């Protein structure tokens, strides 16, 4: 288990480099306008690509799984977020909604 420390350090480097290098290079350069526009779409694209597969797929190997409490809770959570635009509120409301939906599903 002594190797764990070395492993942790190497894993740390492996996660750090993709985080640091673009920050370092792109914060010092004037980017072409098309790239700024492209990067402007990255947050919305990343979020959506993280959320949707987590809601509608499951298992290993992955397959479509539409009937999940996660997806059922996502719709009212989304509505709540759209109406309130409150991050903390949505987190708490989402937890409550999910808790309720789980009762219904089980």
């Amino acid at each position: 288990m002594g190797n764990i420390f070395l492993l942790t350090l190497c894993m740390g480097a492996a996660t750090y480099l993709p985080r640091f290098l673009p920050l370092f290079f792109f914060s010092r350069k004037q980017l072409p306008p098309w790239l700024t526009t492209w990067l402007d779409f990255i947050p919305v694209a990343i979020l959506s690509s993280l959320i949707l597969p987590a809601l509608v797929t499951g298992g290993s190997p992955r397959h479509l799984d539409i009937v999940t409490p996660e997806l059922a809770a996502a719709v009212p959570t989304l509505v709540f977020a759209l109406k309130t635009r409150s991050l903390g509120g949505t987190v708490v409301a989402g937890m409550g909604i999910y808790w309720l939906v789980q009762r219904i599903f089980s």
Partner: protein
Amino acid sequence: MKGPGVQAGSVEKWNWAVIREGAAAAWPICLGYLPIGLAFGVVAQKAGLGLVEIGLMSLVVFAGSSQFIAVSMLGAGAGFLPIVITTFTVNLRHLLMSSALAVHLRSAGKGWIALFGYGVTDESFAFNMSLFRQGNWGWRHALVVNHVSNFAWFASSIIGGLGGSLIPPGSFGIDYALPAMLICLLVFQLRGPVYVIVALVSGIAAVLVSLILPGNAYVIIASVAAATTGLFLSKKTGTEKRET
């Protein structure tokens, strides 16, 4: 580290207010990390890691899915190199996030940027990006958010390693804190029809690719495809966006 403001209206300096505001704003992220950090602690402890090793991994690696994968690979007797390579590929998506964040760190010194890079996660990235846009939010606030979240991650994984198995999983729907937060952060990013289209393209592409390819390459593939779609759409409609 002096320089032009990150954005108009943000004349940010290091002071207690920055630290207080950043820390106060970070609580939804901390709440979201809590169940996952607990779960990681439990899993890691079952895989034979001690508290120091669990805490160190959460501090040094600070990447949820990689840590889970690493621990399960360790349990399966995987070698050193496969674990490091897997960690690297799982976190390649941060290349995209840091590229988008970089424009907001123009006034930060090299040392601060090096420290900032350490704390880039899916959640802190999306959170800070939406606040940068609102103004009154500079890299110092964002840096505080990153580190407060990191502490929450570290602390919850330690608690998980200590006795997280005593906490029944799914209490109070807390497992949904993170998905709910991501949904709200997505809502913050829907700033016009083009963004909605990009979100739909990215989400649908991600689902399709995730069904074909194992792992999480679908995040990068779908995001690149969707952002490119957005770029062409905004060129076509001639939408000029306010940029820094």
